[in-house]
């Protein structure tokens, strides 16, 4: 069966609408922010004092807080210039992370030969199609911020900063632009290769002779390898792409923490997309039993996320070592609402909404919980990046919403394009019958 035009049409419509809206907004916003920052940086170098003062008085009119910052006017201006970059980066990372989380979930389903989930394989494959473009965009933004931008996201990319910073100098064996780019390319290549071959074998299995299971076996084998590769690269990716925005700070369970976040967001998107497609009549074979299991994962991994979040927080809070605890002090002082808000959205909401077995079987309930979870995890990424780049000059305004719409549109477009290219039922998969008959 081929997915009808409706799904694709919807994908096009949504993405076009948001593209237009967003390109407009974003271009305006980026030019404004970028131009401002550039002008500022250029002016600041030749005549340091006069311009910094001028900027300072300008800042005072605009912001009430500026008197605390008169010494750091440049710093603040830099933070303001960072905002569109960071907004773009957060949104790009968020959608990339959804695709990566779904890829990991998909790989686990294949490796464990789960019987309940094969009906959802094509939905998952559709979502993972965004991984390659999404990850390339993230890497390009990161590298661009250090080359054409003014080190707007990663300050360790600035040779000037490194020259005056013993701690970053000690880490420069890992944190350098060349290594960053090469590692990024290796991560993306590994993920994309697995995704490509898993999809290829999955479709080849559909067209295989009855009884021919070679493609299934091949997919199983590469999946086992991928999972090993993934857990190492995911961890390093989270150090590179997120943790290094605070180059002095480190946390040993950061990789797991980011993984929990991407895993739960990915599972939530699987649930939302399946419900949407089912409501359009394309997934007649998916019933509330499958939904129930996906919602169980949403519930369980939300709690897993909280566990990791709290483990990281409590140890640092308890030991109270200055170089570690600054991370949370910034977040609690300057980001009180998003910081605690996300715990409510990512823990309390799913805990209470999805605890009841009957609620997990109601699509509208899962959609509601899912939207809260997704918003919560966007804020989670926001909290990881923003405090290091823009400090207390944060706000969820046009640059942030614009970036979310831009990448959301691109995400929907790529995912629906991919969904329309193959049958929505991986009918050759050996465990398909079990999955179709699955009941709770």
């Amino acid at each position, binding site marked *: 069966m081929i997915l009808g035009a409706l799904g694709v049409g919807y994908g096009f419509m949504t993405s076009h609408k948001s593209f237009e809206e967003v390109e407009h907004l974003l271009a305006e916003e980026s030019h404004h922010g970028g131009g401002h920052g550039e002008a500022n940086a250029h002016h600041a170098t030749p005549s340091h004092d006069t311009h910094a003062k001028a900027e300072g008085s300008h800042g005072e009119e605009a912001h009430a807080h500026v008197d605390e910052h008169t010494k750091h006017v440049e710093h603040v201006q830099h933070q303001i210039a960072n905002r569109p970059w960071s907004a773009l980066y957060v949104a790009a990372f968020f959608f990339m992370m959804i695709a990566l989380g779904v890829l990991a979930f998909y790989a686990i389903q294949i490796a464990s030969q789960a019987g309940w989930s094969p009906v959802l394989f094509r939905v998952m494959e559709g979502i993972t199609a965004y991984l390659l473009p999404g990850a390339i965009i993230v890497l390009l933004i990161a590298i661009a911020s250090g080359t054409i931008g003014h080190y707007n996201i990663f300050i360790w990319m600035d040779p000037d900063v490194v020259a005056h910073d013993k701690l970053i100098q000690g880490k420069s064996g890992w944190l350098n632009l060349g290594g960053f780019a090469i590692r990024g390319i290796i991560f993306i290549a590994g993920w994309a290769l697995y995704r490509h071959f898993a999809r290829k074998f999955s479709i080849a299995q559909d067209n295989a002779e009855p009884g021919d299971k070679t493609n299934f076996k091949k997919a199983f084998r590469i999946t086992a390898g991928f999972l090993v590769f993934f857990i190492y690269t995911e961890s390093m990716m989270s150090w590179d792409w997120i943790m290094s925005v605070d180059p002095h700070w480190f946390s040993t369970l950061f990789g797991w923490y980011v993984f929990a976040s991407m895993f739960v967001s990915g599972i939530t998107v699987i649930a939302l997309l399946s419900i949407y497609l089912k409501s359009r009549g394309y997934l007649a074979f998916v019933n509330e039993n499958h939904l129930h299991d996906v919602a169980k994962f949403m519930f369980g991994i939300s709690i897993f996320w909280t566990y990791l979040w*709290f483990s990281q*927080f*409590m140890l640092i*809070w*308890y*030991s*109270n070592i200055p170089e570690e605890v600054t991370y949370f002090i910034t977040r609690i002082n300057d980001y009180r609402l998003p910081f605690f808000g996300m715990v409510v959205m990512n823990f309390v909401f799913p805990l209470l909404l999805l*605890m*009841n*077995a009957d609620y997990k079987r109601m699509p509208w309930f899962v959609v509601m919980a899912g939207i809260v979870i997704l918003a919560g995890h966007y804020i989670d990424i926001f909290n990881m990046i923003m405090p290091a780049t823009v400090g207390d000059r944060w706000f969820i305004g046009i640059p942030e919403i614009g970036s979310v719409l831009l990448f959301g549109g691109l995400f929907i477009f790529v995912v629906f394009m991919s969904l329309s290219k193959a049958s929505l039922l991986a009918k050759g998969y050996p465990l398909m019958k079990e999955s179709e008959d699955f*009941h709770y």
Partner: protein
Amino acid sequence: MEASKVIHAIYNDDDILMSAVKRVKAERYHIEEIYTPFPVHGLDRAMGLAPTRIAITAFIYGLIGLTVATLMMNFIMIEDWPQNIGGKPSFSYLENMPAFVPIMFELTVFFSAHLMVITFYLRSRMWPFKSAENPDPRTTDDHFLMEIAVNGNEEALSSMLKDTGAVEINLVDKAH
């Protein structure tokens, strides 16, 4: 008082048992009880039993555990013998809360699990030194036993049960 008669149909496979239960329900016989060596998934639904209420009790017990943990830690660590926790002598429960979360979590789970088990035992009328109720010791090993009330229709009932794949059918007097 007249002793009522029941039929004990014995099966040796849970899938056969499941289809037999559906058949017996479809023919509108009354299943008194089923004895199985292990929990059979979906059996309660096939028998038409009311959904379990253990989940809601688990939630309530969890809340009780959380409350107990909070009150206990507050008394021990804050009121009775104020402690300087992690070099932060705030002497306030809320400000020291992160240190107490593991205990709050553990007691929630502890209360929920233990009280659930106790509730389950009481509700199933099981307590220490109680003599076993199951009519055939083989149901603790590898056989499944379905007990069906007989109202003078044993012929039809036995042949129907034979049909469903029972390996043994016994007519038993059950004293009330």
